[in-house]
């Protein structure tokens, strides 16, 4: 596997996993302010 292809695959797979992961983190973060609302 060439370096360029390997880098491409690494970027695609990082985005593929990273975007939904960050969405999951965001979903957790938006719940936290309710802790301080009462």
């Amino acid at each position: 596997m060439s370096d360029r292809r390997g880098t491409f695959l690494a970027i695609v797979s990082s985005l593929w996993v990273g975007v939904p992961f960050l969405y999951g983190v965001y979903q957790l973060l938006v719940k936290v302010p309710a802790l301080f609302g009462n």
Partner: protein
Amino acid sequence: MWLIILGYGVIGGIGLGIGYISPVSTLMKWFPDRPGMATGFAIMGFGGGALIASPWSSQLMKWFGADRHGLATTFLVMGVVYAVFMTMGIVLVRLPAPQWEPPVVRSAGPKTPHAAGPDRTANEAIKTPQFWLLWVVLCFNVTAGIGILERAAPIYRDYFPRAASPTALTAAAAGFVAMLSLANSWGRIIWSSASDAAGRKNMYRVYLGLGALLYLVLIVAQNASKPLFLAVCIVLLSFYGAGFATVPAYLRDLFGYLEVGAIHGRLLTAWSTAGVLGPVIVNAIADNRIAAGIVGPDRYRWSFAIMVALLLIALVCNELIRTPRPPNSVATVSDTRTATAATSREGVR
């Protein structure tokens, strides 16, 4: 039903274990100077899988329906997508060459990176006291974390029942659970990475010793201060995640690289045991106290006291851990990267 038990339970469970251990041991070999950071990232990623899978599976069931046909389609779609992801992992993940060393600027790293221990096979490792001491350390550390995580929402409602409305209280409890999940997740990277500089043994002293003190704070302070309660729970849950994120690097310090993945697999029986022990302790005692008509933080006083005791026992076990001496027979299979017994003794602090 048998297909669910065999496919999702047995085969899926085996796959989960393989998927958990393989990247952890591989990453440690790519980052021999920072094994704690490497395992922290890998194990945070494992926890992050729940962040993706949970909302995604719920969404799929909304699309396909929650009836028999919809659930079957949901499983099918998830299976196909997981197969694609795992195949991509096969393409990307590689073991480094035996003599490989990272071409990093070492000045940025710890000045005295901790050497790997003398190589041991899994069968040799489980015959050492170090393995079983570490088993107790991991089991009780995880038990203490699950004690809160398992019952987080009811604990919050019992500690701080006052709210503008029942809806606000439910939202606040959900916020508490979310906050603990984040602490659990980031604790895996932060504390495990810190172990590369501070030493594995020292970090477990903090997880266990400070963890016991923080549980005492929960018992004594009760609901006197909400910020204090939240801060204590955040740190406790970060130690929970850190405990099993740091343990592969601890194993590598003790037993070398030779079969660290297999040894890690055997050690994870401690996690399984804790998965039963933690909820049983907290739920059984809390349910008993509720039946006795006790309200508020007092419902958890005894559960938390037991957690303090377990953490102190684990602290003593951690103190008793020593790097095993390399047997003569094993020395022949040690590769050139393996440190000598003398240097590895310095490695486990």
